[in-house]
């Protein structure tokens, strides 16, 4: 299974022990096994339920122990493999902690594709970045699997759900552990596939099915960029394996057009997967999937793959100031744009979706200003608090759904205007979600504060670097990022207030059926809440070290130091070409100053908006008047979907129809059939000579003979 590193380093006097991986292949293999088992169960179950559907009904699942094994086994298999994978990943992580690993540890399993000139192995790469991502994916994944056991328990497609979820984890692990771009691409498209399947999990609903399709197609636009980038890279380096590729990247010219093209195309891929402008449109629609899916795929893991891609390719991005500025710019504008839309959404999941888009924008801003570790830092904290928010929302929706279902009410269980005052019914959910809200708003000492603040600070610092490429641009970015932080605090508070505070708007009868989620659901919430608090402490900025009592010195800049082997090459390039980053923000003030300013601002916003929203008389969805003016534009998401439909989708369909009905059917087939008709026409004319009279034939024959005679004589 694992081939140890063979370079004879053990015997040397160097104290740095060799890193010995602990069955790393199992981390990937376990979810696959889970997928196979759950998949088999799902197929088995599907036949049974299909028979019921054919008879015109639905399959009755029964309750508790009476349920068939297809509905009990996945509860153990699904989370079980995740826990095992997480534990193995942890062992590897701990082993890596104890050694100094400078080079990625690559384990080859088999030759995947090998032609004469191009070879890529099925190989995994263990380094600080991939092991960290693996930990997040399996850890958060495990929690969400556990949550799903409760959330999906009454669903007919229970085993199918877990098989998809396991398959997703498998592909996600391939994505983060793959040792080459093509292998990463396998995971990249694989997670897209699972996302497609899970968004359209309830495929009998046309809208949900559409949403899945949209996600897949938009993702494919991004994948197009990824593919082109790979082709360009292969042209430049002759290999697509990370280790040799990055070690040769040093020889590239700084700011070269080729490297800029590569990085921009890669970013197109990243924008597709991570829902950045202009390809973000699929993510809000993706909320059609089950809520734990939104938490796992569309918040914590898959959508952050773009950030991972940029960090993985940090060497290339560092070489291209244009691409980096683009990444940062797209990121920060997406952050602002999505935040504005989130202000006016009423669907609890839509708010979270746009908030995710916005936070992803922050991450791209971070990696765009060369703060690769910081981008990953925000990725991690975001995974914690956003997963928590989604799961909390899931708990709310679960409760709402059950209540509405039992009272035969056909209102939308996800519309916040129908909620209100849920704090009384769901205290644990309420509490944990507030933790997450503080975290996302960036309030000290919650996780989000450290990561988000550092991104904003790094933007300022990068713009102020000695030879920064576009200093003014970065100052604009910095201001927008600060402003968006305030918007974030506002819309999150609005969401919390509309959901949990104020008067209850569900209706009297419905309110009787509102309960707190079962332990299998709130335990993951608690775990994530803890992580949302302490998650930020792994990377306390140097400047805040002293202010952070106790733990500060211990964990100061830990993540930066941990990721140093991965990012140092990029940092060297950056420092060499741009010089030292600034110590002061554009309007003066150091890191500490602005950290204080931003946390105070965030806290103030939370408090103000809490009071603003709670006083506002929110009405239930059915009675809510139509919006007008700018609010309507925001509510309708700036009409971007409509614009895309008009400018891209409809013209494409029209062109396609034109190609088919005119070019294919008229022009080409017209020519083909025309040739046929011409042949018939000629035949008709010639047939006139076929009089049937022997003499005529004889005459023609004689003329022929005469011609031959004439030719042979003269």
């Amino acid at each position: 299974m694992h081939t140890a590193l063979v370079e004879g380093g053990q015997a040397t006097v160097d104290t740095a022990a060799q890193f010995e991986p602990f069955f790393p292949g199992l981390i990937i293999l376990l979810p696959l096994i889970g997928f196979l088992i759950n998949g088999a169960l799902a197929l088995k179950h599907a036949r049974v339920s299909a028979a019921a559907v054919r008879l015109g009904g639905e399959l009755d699942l029964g309750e508790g122990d009476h349920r068939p094994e297809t509905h009990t086994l996945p509860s153990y298999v699904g989370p079980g493999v995740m826990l095992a994978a997480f534990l193995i990943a942890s062992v590897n992580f701990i082993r890596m902690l104890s050694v100094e690993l400078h080079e990625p540890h690559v384990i080859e399993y088999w030759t995947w594709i090998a032609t004469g000139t191009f070879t890529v192995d099925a190989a995994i790469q263990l380094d600080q970045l991939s092991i960290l991502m693996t930990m997040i994916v399996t850890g958060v994944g495990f929690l969400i699997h556990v949550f799903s056991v409760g959330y999906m328990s009454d669903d007919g497609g229970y085993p199918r759900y877990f098989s998809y979820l396991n398959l997703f984890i498998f592909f996600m692990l391939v994505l983060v552990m793959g040792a080459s771009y093509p292998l990463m691409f396998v995971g990249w498209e694989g997670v897209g596939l699972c996302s497609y399947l899970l968004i359209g999990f309830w495929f009998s609903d046309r809208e949900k099915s559409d949403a899945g399709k949209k996600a897949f197609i938009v993702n494919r636009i991004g994948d197009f960029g990824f593919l082109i980038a790979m082709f360009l890279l292969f042209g430049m380096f002759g290999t697509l394996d990370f280790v040799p590729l990055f070690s040769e990247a040093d020889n590239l010219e700084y700011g070269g057009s080729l490297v800029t093209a590569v990085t921009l195309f890669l970013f197109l891929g990243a924008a597709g997967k991570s829902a950045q402008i202009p390809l973000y449109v699929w993510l809000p629609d993706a909320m059609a999937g089950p809520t734990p899916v939104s938490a796992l795929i569309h918040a914590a893991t898959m959508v952050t793959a773009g950030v991972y891609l940029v960090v993985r390719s940090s060497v290339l991005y560092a070489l291209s100031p244009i691409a980096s500025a683009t990444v940062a710019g797209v990121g920060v504008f997406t952050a602002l744009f999505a935040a504005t839309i989130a202000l006016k959404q009423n669907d609890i999941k839509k708010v979270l979706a746009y908030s995710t888009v916005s936070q992803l924008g922050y991450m791209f801003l971070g990696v765009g200003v060369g703060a690769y570790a910081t981008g990953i830092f925000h990725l991690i904290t975001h995974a914690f608090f956003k997963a928590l928010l989604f799961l909390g929302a899931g708990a709310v929706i679960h409760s709402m759904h059950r209540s509405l279902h039992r009272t035969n009410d056909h209102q939308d269980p996800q519309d916040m205007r129908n909620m209100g005052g849920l704090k009384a019914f769901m205290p644990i959910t309420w509490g944990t979600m507030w933790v997450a809200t503080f975290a996302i708003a960036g309030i000290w000492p919650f996780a989000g504060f450290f990561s988000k603040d550092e991104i904003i600070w790094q933007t300022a610092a990068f713009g102020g670097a000695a030879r920064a490429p576009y200093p003014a641009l970065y100052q604009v970015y910095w201001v927008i990022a600060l402003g968006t932080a305030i918007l974030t605090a506002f819309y999150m508070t609005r969401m919390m207030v509309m959901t949990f505070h104020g008067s209850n708007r569900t209706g009297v009868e419905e309110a009787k059926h509102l309960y707190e989620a079962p332990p299998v659901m709130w335990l993951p919430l608690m775990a994530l809440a803890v992580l949302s608090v302490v998650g930020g402490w792994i990377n306390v900025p140097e400047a805040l070290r002293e202010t952070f009592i106790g733990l500060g010195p211990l964990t100061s800049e830990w993540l930066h130091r941990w990721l140093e082997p991965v990012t140092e090459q990029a940092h060297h390039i950056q420092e060499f070409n741009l010089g030292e980053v600034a110590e002061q923000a554009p309007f003066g003030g150091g890191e500490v100053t602005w950290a204080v300013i931003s946390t105070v601002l965030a806290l103030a916003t939370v408090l103000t908006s809490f009071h603003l929203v709670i006083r506002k008389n929110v009405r239930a969805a059915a009675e809510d008047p139509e919006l007008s003016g700018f609010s309507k534009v925001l509510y309708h998401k700036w009409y971007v979907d409509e614009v895309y439909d008009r400018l891209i989708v409809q013209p494409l369909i029209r062109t396609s129809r034109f190609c088919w009905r005119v070019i294919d059917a008229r022009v080409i087939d017209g020519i083909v059939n025309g040739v046929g008709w011409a042949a018939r026409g000629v035949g008709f004319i010639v047939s006139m000579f076929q009089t049937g009279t022997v003499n005529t034939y004889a005459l023609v024959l004689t003329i022929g003979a005469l011609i031959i005679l004439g030719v042979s004589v003269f």
Partner: protein
Amino acid sequence: MTALLDSIGYSGWVLHTLIWMPILGIGLVLWADEQRAKYVAFWWSAVVLILSLGLWWAFDPTVGGIQMESATPWIKSWGVSYALGIDGISLFMVMLTTFSASISILASFNYIQNRQRPFYALMLMLEAGVVGVFLATDLFLFYVFFELTLVPMYFIVGIWGGARRIYAAIKFFLYTALGSLLMLVGILYLVYRAKTLLGAPTFAYAELLQVPLSGTEQLWLFGAFALAFSVKIPVFPLHTWLPDAHVEAPTSGSVILAAVLLKIGTYGFLRFLLPLFPVAAQHPVVVNTMLVLAVIGIIYTACVAAVQSDAKKLVAYTSVAHMGFVVLGIFALNVNGLQGGLVVMISHGISTGALFLLLGMLSERRHTREIEEFGGIARVAPWFATAFVVTALASIGLPGTSGFVGEFLVLLGAFEDHKGLALTATLGVILSAYYMLPMVQRIFFNPLEKQENREIRDLSKREIVILAPLCALMIWIGWNPTPLLERMEPSVRAVIERVEGATIEARARVEDEVNEGQIVDDGQE
């Protein structure tokens, strides 16, 4: 395994057996009674398939040239011989043929209800013909088999087809025959040149390779051959026979058509066009014409496919797009492109074949192919839906399936010298999702509204037996294509070396001639 095969002298007789066994089977099928004919045909073709599987081990992957050669004089005065041989290019085509022949015969059990004996006899004849095309190393023999494949296909479409079967059959026949006649003229010219050089006419492939041709001659001959093969592939704009033929053909006809008949065209490019006319094949005008047509084919047919209302027609159009990738790979003229092209050929054979099978099963149940008629079928036929989704994903080239490996290599190869075109072709990746997913959604997802759809049965055991190996192959090739790639590499390399071996001097000569206005490009007429 190799030792076992050696002990029975496998490589000595297998190639002949693969051609003559099906022909023998024709007699058996016609002799059997009407109800048993299908079983006879299936088991007979299964035996052929098993015999062909031995090639996997008997084939020597280190040899680039043609192996297991044998030649018997046939018409001595013309230099025609019955000569067979196999190399890394034809190996997989032969196996694909025997495989898809068995599968499609098995898939016809319910579909073909009347005149069963002649149907299965024609299927076996088709199998023999296609295997012959891939194995012949004599141009005369090749041409005979090439034309022989037309006849059974013509009847299969024309007799057991749908409503417009006559139109489709004749269109198919005329399109192909027209192209192949020009090729015959080309072959005869080549033989004539061989006669002036060697003193005696010869149709042997190896000897024709030695005939030195001027640049002008090569371009003309290239045009004649390319037209014949381009119709077969089909290359845009010669593709309009394909949707009609596919839509009207019975399921098994579509499967064979997609899986192997189209491959004859690209195989012809690899086997004859590039090695015989290397100077013409790398003439920039020729290369660019073919590449541009391939890219147009990819983009254009993908768009056209997306707006089809008939599911079978949709898949037929996607065939054109996939074959565009193959042509793109071939005219990338490097190892990656050619190998990718071959993998796309295999993968397309499997996945599109499977799509046609599935659609056939669907229309057997519902007696319609209109996409709008379906909806929500995944609920009543979950296994069916699973098989379809897996196949569709392989067809659009999702990584981890066979489609990806081929398309990736093709594009990688094409990108080396033709960045703009390859970039445009990569758009096909997006478009493939644009045509395939809506179809999957409209058939299998969405609400289950129609009562007829509610009564659709899930896969039967026989259907599972048909589909399981196909799905397994798609995924296996997707994750481990190396055994395939390493077997084809030496042969592909030989083709490349042959093309590049045509000296720069010769290339310059052609360019001079073109500049003097003596010839015009005729890569496509």
